[in-house]
C-alpha cells in the first residue's frame, strides 16, 4: 500500500523524472514514454469522485481528487507528456527529459489536488521545472529569459500563497473548490491564476519565454502551465462575469502582435494567448456547456498547439532558423513536417473535420446561449483572425514562401512520428467529436456538424483568406521584419531598469551631497573642539594661580550684581 502522498499519478511522473537522469539512454527513453502511459492508465482506473486525505501538521490535505474536470485535464496532460516525450526521444540530454517529466507530473498533481496547500506546492514545482527547460538550452539569452520567467512564476506562486493563507485563515476551509471573487483572499488567488493564464497586461512572460526554449522544450512548455491555470480558473472562478471581458480582450489584442511577429514560435505564443482567451470567456460564463467548452478547447488546443510547436521545433532543429525572414521553401525538403504543420494550422483555424472546430463551437454555442451578442461577435471575429495570423502565416513563411537559400535534411523519425500521432489525434477528434465529448466534465448534448454551422464556418474561413489575399496583393499585409515590437515586457525590461538607474543615480548623488555635508560639518566641529580642548587649546592651558583668582573674583562680582 502506497503512502497517501505518493498515491497520485502526478507523483509517479515526478519520481520518474527524478530517476531518469541516472539511467542509461535506452532505459531513459523507456521511462520517458512509459511513465505517462502508466500514469494515464492509472488515472483511467480511478473512479470519478475518489479523494484521498492525509494530515500534515494540523491540516487535512487532499492530495488526490478525481472528478470530471480533473479527469479531463489529467488525461490530456498525460497524452501531452507522452507525445512531447516521443518528440524528444532523439535527445541525449539527461536533464531535459527529467525536467519535462517533473513539469508534467507537477501540473498533473496540481490538477488532481483537492486543497489549496497541495495546489500551491505543485504550482511552485511547475515553475521550477519549466524554468529548467529554459535553462537547459544553455544560451546566454535563454538564461536571462529564464530569470525573468522564474521571477514571474514565483510572483504568481507568492500571490497564490498569500491568497490561500488569507482564505484558509478567514474561512477555515482548505478545500480547493469554487472560490468566487467575494471570498477572502480571492483577488490574490485570481491574480495568481491570471498571471499563469496570461491575462492581458500579465501575458508577456509567455511570448518572452516560449520562443527562447529549445526545439523540444517549447513543445513541453506550451502544454502545461497555461492549461493548469485554466483548470484552476474553471475550478475556482467558474461563472465570474469579470472573466468574460478579460477573455474577450485576450482573443483580440494578441492577434495584432501575432501578425507582426517575425519569430514563428513567438507567433504561436501570441496565438496561444488568443486561444486561452476563448477558454477564459467560457469559464466566465460558467454554465455546464461553457465549462465543457473550456475543457474541450484545452484538450484540442494542447494537441494542435503542440503540433505547431513541434513543426517549428523540427524546422529550427534542421535549419537553425525559426524566423519568417530567414525561412521558406522547405515544403519539398520536409514534406511530412509541412503536411503536419498545415493540419495543425487547419485545426487552430477551426476547419470543419478538425479538432479545433468541435471545441471552439462548444464555446461559441455557450456564449450564444447566454445571449452575449458583443462577446459572440468578438469571438467569431477572433476565430476568423486565426486564419490570418497563424493558419496561413506559419505554414506559408516556413514552408511555401520563396527562399532558395536553405537546404536541410528531414527531421529524425521520432519527431515525425510524434507529429504524425498528434496530427492524427487532431483529425480523429474532429471526425469523431464523441470521443472528445465523452471525457468532458459534464454530459454533452451538442452536435457541431449541422449544415448551417458548417456553412457559416466555411464562409468565415474563405472570406478571411480572401481578405488576407487581397491585402497581400495590394502590398498592405505587414510582412515580417527583423525588428522588435514593444509589448508589456517593455515595462520591466526598459522602464523599470531606467527608473532603477535614475533612482540609483539620485541615491548616489544624495549620499555624496549628504555625506559631504556631514563630513564638512564634523570637520568644522572637530576643528573648533581642537581649538579649545587640544594640548594648546584655551580649555587645556595651564593657567597661573593669579589669573584663576582674578577670574573667580570677576565671576563673583557678576553673580552678586545679577543677584541684587
Amino acid at each position, binding site marked *: 500500500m502506497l503512502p497517501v502522498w505518493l498515491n497520485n499519478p502526478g507523483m509517479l511522473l515526478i519520481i520518474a523524472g527524478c530517476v531518469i537522469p541516472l539511467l542509461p539512454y535506452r532505459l531513459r527513453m523507456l521511462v520517458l514514454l512509459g511513465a505517462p502511459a502508466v500514469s494515464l492508465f492509472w488515472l483511467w482506473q480511478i473512479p470519478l469522485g475518489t479523494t484521498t486525505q492525509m494530515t500534515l501538521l494540523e491540516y487535512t490535505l487532499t492530495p488526490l481528487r478525481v472528478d470530471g474536470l480533473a479527469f479531463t485535464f489529467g488525461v490530456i496532460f498525460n497524452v501531452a507528456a507522452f507525445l512531447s516525450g516521443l518528440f524528444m526521444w532523439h535527445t541525449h540530454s539527461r536533464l531535459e527529459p527529467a525536467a519535462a517529466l517533473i513539469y508534467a507530473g507537477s501540473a498533473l498533481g496540481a490538477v488532481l489536488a483537492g486543497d489549496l496547500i497541495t495546489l500551491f506546492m505543485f504550482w511552485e514545482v511547475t515553475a521550477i521545472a519549466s524554468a529548467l527547460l529554459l535553462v537547459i538550452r544553455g544560451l546566454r539569452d535563454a538564461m*536571462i529569459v529564464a530569470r*525573468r520567467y522564474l521571477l514571474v512564476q514565483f510572483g504568481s506562486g507568492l500571490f497564490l500563497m498569500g491568497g490561500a493563507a488569507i482564505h484558509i485563515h478567514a474561512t477555515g476551509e482548505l478545500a480547493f473548490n469554487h472560490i468566487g471573487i467575494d471570498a477572502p483572499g480571492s483577488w490574490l488567488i485570481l491574480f495568481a491564476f491570471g498571471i499563469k493564464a496570461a491575462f492581458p497586461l500579465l501575458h508577456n512572460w509567455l511570448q518572452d519565454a516560449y520562443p527562447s526554449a529549445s526545439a523540444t522544450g517549447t513543445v513541453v512548455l506550451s502544454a502545461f502551465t497555461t492549461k493548469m491555470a485554466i483548470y484552476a480558473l474553471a475550478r475556482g472562478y467558474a461563472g465570474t462575469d469579470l472573466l468574460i471581458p478579460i477573455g474577450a480582450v485576450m482573443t483580440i489584442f494578441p*492577434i*495584432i502582435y501575432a*501578425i*507582426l511577429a517575425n519569430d514563428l514560435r513567438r507567433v504561436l505564443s501570441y496565438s496561444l494567448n488568443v486561444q486561452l482567451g476563448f477558454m477564459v470567456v467560457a469559464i466566465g460564463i460558467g454554465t455546464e456547456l461553457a465549462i465543457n467548452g473550456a475543457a474541450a478547447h484545452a484538450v484540442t488546443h494542447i494537441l494542435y498547439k503542440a503540433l505547431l510547436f513541434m513543426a517549428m521545433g523540427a524546422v529550427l532543429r534542421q535549419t*537553425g532558423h525559426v524566423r519568417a525572414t530567414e525561412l521558406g*521553401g522547405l515544403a*519539398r*525538403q520536409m514534406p511530412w513536417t509541412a503536411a503536419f504543420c498545415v493540419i495543425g494550422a487547419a485545426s487552430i483555424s477551426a476547419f470543419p473535420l478538425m479538432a479545433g472546430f468541435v471545441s471552439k463551437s462548444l464555446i461559441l454555442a455557450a456564449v*450564444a*446561449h447566454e*445571449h452575449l*451578442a458583443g462577446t*459572440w*461577435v468578438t469571438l*467569431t*471575429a477572433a476565430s*476568423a*483572425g486565426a486564419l*490570418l495570423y497563424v493558419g496561413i502565416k506559419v505554414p506559408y513563411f516556413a514552408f*511555401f514562401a*520563396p*527562399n*532558395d*537559400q*536553405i*537546404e536541410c535534411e528531414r527531421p529524425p523519425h521520432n519527431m515525425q512520428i510524434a507529429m504524425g500521432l498528434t496530427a492524427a489525434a487532431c483529425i480523429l477528434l474532429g471526425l469523431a467529436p464523441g470521443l472528445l465529448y465523452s471525457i468532458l466534465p459534464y454530459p454533452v448534448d451538442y452536435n457541431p456538424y*449541422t*449544415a*448551417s454551422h458548417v*456553412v*457559416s*464556418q*466555411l*464562409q*468565415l*474561413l*474563405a*472570406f*478571411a*483568406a*480572401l*481578405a*488576407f*489575399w487581397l*491585402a497581400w*496583393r495590394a502590398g*498592405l*499585409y*505587414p510582412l515580417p*521584419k527583423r*525588428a*522588435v*515590437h*514593444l*509589448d508589456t515586457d517593455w515595462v520591466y*525590461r*526598459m522602464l523599470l*531598469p531606467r527608473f532603477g538607474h535614475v533612482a540609483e543615480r539620485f541615491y548616489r548623488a544624495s549620499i555624496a551631497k549628504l555625506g559631504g555635508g556631514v563630513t564638512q560639518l564634523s570637520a568644522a566641529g572637530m576643528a573648533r573642539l581642537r581649538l579649545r580642548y587640544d594640548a594648546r587649546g584655551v580649555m587645556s592651558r595651564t593657567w597661573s594661580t593669579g589669573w584663576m583668582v582674578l577670574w573667580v573674583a570677576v565671576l563673583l562680582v557678576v553673580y552678586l550684581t545679577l543677584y541684587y
Partner: protein
Amino acid sequence: MLFERNPRKYRRPSSRARQRWARLLYLACALTLVPSLFIHPHSEFGFAEIPAFHALLAFLTGCALVLVAIVVRRILIRAENYYEHRT
C-alpha cells in the same frame, strides 16, 4: 548556412500557379455563399441570420486587423537589438 539554389529541392512558385490558387480561392468563396441561399441559419441573434453574415464579418475582420497592424507597427516597432545590453 547559405547554399546555392538547389532546383531539385526548391521550385519558385510561378505567377501562373499563384493565379490558379487565387481563382481557386474566389471559387471557394463563391461556393460557400451558395448554400446560404437555401439553408436558413439558426442563431440566437437576429443579425447572425442575415445571409452571408459570417462572410462579411470575416472579410471586415481581416481588413481591420491588417489595417490596425499597419498602424500599430508604426508605433511599436524598434530595432532588432533594442533590448540588447539592457536586460
